[in-house]
């Protein structure tokens, strides 16, 4: 029995469920603008979410915003409903439209959609937003339909104009043609197409007809991100704009007791000092003046309700619970009874630290508020949540607040926040200032690293038993940690019977055939805000389970790949990626001299990833990861090169955390501040990476996150084989790895 849902269930969809969950449009609407071509939108049935009240709250103008716009200038603009924070959502969604429209790739442009929880909702969430690697999965049919509908209307217009049947017309690479040699561009036919009826249904291509899907072609955003013109939130500049930084409490849960502003007010360029619920805001004419002004500010904090425990306190409280039964997340057979009969028992206790996301662009948000309406610009990942929060803080109706999504400089989970706290504080500042000028609130790197919303601390104990023949007969996994979802609006979705699915995902779905298996959870209450961090529960569960499998393989005297395959006989997709990675890495051949290989396998966000890491030990107990071979089964790879990019980057992100990532607390205060104390992965740490994709006709599943968690245990397993040392505490720089007599 497994817990009924996981983050994957909530934020990702099974291919089949996805198709079923997607409402068939009960009506289709399109808008035509006089002389500006075809604008096509598919209006989802409004009563589907929120009912009449919701429909009334959302003006028709927003609800008919389109997905595809074809201009007389022959530019095809695809409206992107999801934030692109580097994962390639804009390229992916544009691909789907280009495919079914048969547009030329160079005529494609993208723009981010406005906030609209109906038209632009994520079918996996029911509201607008992206996360859990759902971006392409939930849009796969929707955006293809939008492209196919536009194509049908173009065909109808050409047929009428040329006096032929639509079936006699071809569209190739954006050129409409018939056998006689007559041709037209999409743009030339757009106005006529807009005058025709919108087809009630369209036929989508079969995979053998794909021109773009599954092929390599350029990202839509490379040029702007290579010449400095891509505009992020921090780059927004407007007439009269003020820049704001906020002094926030050094301990989580503290509040402003009093503050001395005189020196800060005299600091050059400072315009105002304002108390807001989040702290004390310094508004200035430019960024440097705001930062310098804040340095001159003196704030006394009321810490009576603040979290004051240190990391060591928390870990020791958590560890004490490893001896006590927790809430049951999965129970197959009787693990304790089987352990009592086991010939050998292997026990491992694991410890994982808090982790900051540290996207390169720190949090930021621009708000212009005039008392009766507001505009917001930010890299909004959960538009409906950010928009709703802004309305609430500003006391405005939804139609009075416009949210503009702009390119985001990374997220890794950090911009998808149930309490939309950085949008809330920017709105609080705008409201407190009360003048209709744009205000750009910027977090410095120190604000970011110290700002909480971390991947939670977790400790685990796994006990597993082998019989005399080396078969795994028992697995008992106890997990202790803080819930990401408890206390948020997502709680009802994720927390059931005391189990936050995101705490146990990947552990309670252990794929290996083990007859007696128990997974338990203790949920801790700590006053540190926590959040999903790229791959969420898998960030710790993949390491604990996959490192444990290697410890068991060794006890059983078996090869780690063969041992896994023997336990995956009814798991073809797990076995498929494992075999592909092993084959490509040359698992059965000798590694380069001085190098040791390790393997790991994990399913997350409905994708399957196996990785093989090669490590070399260095004098002094350090090591270098020289090569990682990765195999993913993510269903159809819409743009394989974007999938490879996500695997490369995901591996690097996971490896950075594995090597050095840790946020620690002393007396409740964060001890790290910037990239010297919270050290990111750097070029010299980056292994050579080879990424492979299992060919598949299944609907696409996640790629943004599944590459991240697997590298930790793959590296740990390589180090285990090289040194006999276990990796029980993360990050890995907590111990020295020495080759020599096995200590395991």
């Amino acid at each position, binding site marked *: 029995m497994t817990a009924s849902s996981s983050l994957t269930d909530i934020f990702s969809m099974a291919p089949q469920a996805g198709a079923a969950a997607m409402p068939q449009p009960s009506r289709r609407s399109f808008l035509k603008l006089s002389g500006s071509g075809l604008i096509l939108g598919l209006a989802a049935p409004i009563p589907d979410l929120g009912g009449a009240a919701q429909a009334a709250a959302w003006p028709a103008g927003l609800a008919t915003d389109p997905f595809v716009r074809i201009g007389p200038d022959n530019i095809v603009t695809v409206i992107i409903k999801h934030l692109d924070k580097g994962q390639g959502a804009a390229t992916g969604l544009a691909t789907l439209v280009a495919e079914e429209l048969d547009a030329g790739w160079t005529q494609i442009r993208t723009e981010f959609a406005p906030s609209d929880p109906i038209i632009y909702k994520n079918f996996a969430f029911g509201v607008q937003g992206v996360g859990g690697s759902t971006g392409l999965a939930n849009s796969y049919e929707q955006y293809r339909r939008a492209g196919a509908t536009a194509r049908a209307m173009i065909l109808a217009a050409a047929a009428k104009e040329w006096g032929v049947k639509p079936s006699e017309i071809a569209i190739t690479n954006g050129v409409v043609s018939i056998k006689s040699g007559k041709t037209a561009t999409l743009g030339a036919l757009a106005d006529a197409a807009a005058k025709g009826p919108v087809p009630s249904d369209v036929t989508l291509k079969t995979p053998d007809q794909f021109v773009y899907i599954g092929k390599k072609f350029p990202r839509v955003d490379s040029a702007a991100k290579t010449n400095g013109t*891509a505009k992020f939130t921090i780059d927004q500049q407007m007439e009269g704009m003020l820049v704001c930084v906020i002094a926030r409490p050094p301990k989580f849960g503290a509040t402003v007791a009093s503050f001395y502003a005189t020196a800060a007010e005299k600091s050059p360029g400072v315009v105002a000092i304002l108390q807001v619920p989040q702290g004390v805001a310094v508004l200035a004419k430019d960024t440097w003046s705001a930062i310098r002004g804040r340095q001159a500010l003196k704030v006394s904090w009321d810490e009576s309700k603040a979290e004051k425990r240190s990391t060591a306190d928390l870990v020791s409280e958590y560890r004490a619970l490893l001896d006590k039964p927790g809430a049951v997340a999965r129970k197959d057979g009787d693990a304790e009874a089987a352990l009592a009969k086991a010939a050998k028992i292997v026990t491992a206790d694991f410890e994982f630290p808090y982790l900051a996301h540290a996207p390169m662009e720190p949090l930021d948000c621009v708000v212009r508020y005039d008392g009766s309406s507001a505009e917001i610009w930010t890299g909004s990942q959960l538009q409906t949540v950010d928009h709703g929060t802004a309305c609430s803080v500003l006391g405005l109706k939804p139609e009075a607040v416009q949210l503009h999504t702009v390119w985001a400089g990374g997220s890794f989970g950090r911009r998808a926040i149930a309490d939309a706290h950085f949008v809330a504080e920017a709105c609080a500042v705008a409201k407190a200032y009360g003048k209709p000028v744009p205000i750009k609130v910027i977090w410095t790197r120190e604000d970011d690293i110290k700002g909480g919303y971390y991947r939670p601390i977790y400790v685990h104990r796994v006990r597993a038993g082998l019989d005399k023949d080396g078969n795994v007969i028992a697995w008992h996994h106890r997990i202790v940690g803080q819930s990401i979802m408890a206390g948020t609006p997502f709680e009802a979705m994720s927390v059931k019977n005391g189990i936050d699915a995101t705490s146990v995902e990947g552990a309670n779905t252990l794929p290996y055939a083990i007859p007696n298996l128990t997974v338990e959870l203790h949920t801790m209450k700590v006053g540190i805000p926590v959040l999903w961090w790229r791959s969420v529960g898998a960030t710790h569960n993949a390491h604990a389970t996959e490192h444990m499998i290697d410890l068991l393989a060794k006890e059983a005297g078996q090869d780690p790949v063969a041992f896994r395959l023997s336990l995956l006989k009814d798991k073809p997709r797990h076995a498929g990626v494992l075999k592909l990675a092993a084959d490509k890495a040359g698992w059965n051949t000798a590694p380069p001299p001085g190098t040791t290989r390790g393997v790991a396998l994990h399913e997350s966000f409905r994708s399957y990833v196996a990785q093989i890491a090669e490590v070399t030990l260095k004098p002094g107990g350090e090591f270098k990861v020289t090569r990682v071979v990765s195999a993913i089964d993510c269903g159809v790879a819409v743009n394989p090169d974007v999938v490879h990019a996500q695997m490369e980057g995901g591996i690097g992100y996971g490896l950075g955390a594995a090597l050095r990532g840790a946020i620690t607390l002393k007396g409740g205060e964060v001890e790290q501040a910037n990239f010297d104390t919270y050290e*990111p992965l750097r070029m010299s740490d980056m292994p050579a990476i080879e990424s492979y994709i299992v060919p598949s006709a299944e609907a696409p599943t996640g790629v943004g996150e599944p590459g991240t968690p697997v590298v930790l245990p793959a590296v740990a397993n390589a180090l285990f084989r090289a040194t006999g040392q276990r990796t029980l505490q993360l990050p890995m720089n907590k111990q020295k790895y020495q080759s020599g007599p096995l200590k395991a």
Partner: protein
Amino acid sequence: MSISVNINGEKRKLDAAPDTPLLWVLRDELGLTGTKYGCGAALCGACSVHLDGEVVRSCQIQAQDVEGRTVTTIEGADDKVAQAVKAAWNKLDVAQCGYCQSGQIMSAIGLLSQNAKPTNDDIDKAMDGNVCRCATYHRIRAAIHEAAKSV
């Protein structure tokens, strides 16, 4: 007293206070927002620009230090090496979120201007100060080798 500086081939007078970091002069006063803030402490390289042809972290250069000197930012980098680097970045689709890439590109131009055929070790040394949280390092390395072919 205003500061005179050549920025991307144009003579400019700066109004900023003398101790203002060049990063914020470029971004807030001159609107050259391709140069990014990432750490404010020379730890991430997102703000890398060229000062008289050398790669520097603009968050650590004060406005008064650029008097009479030449600053090149991502917007103005267009010599042969810069063109090769930008073309390679495009060809290999290096960018993910893209936020750090201006700094990466300025550092890569600096490297290739000094060393037309860098090894992986040379790349590690020259690029280690430029953080990419999307970890596009794999492609940055490949793109530098790609650009080296046409430098």
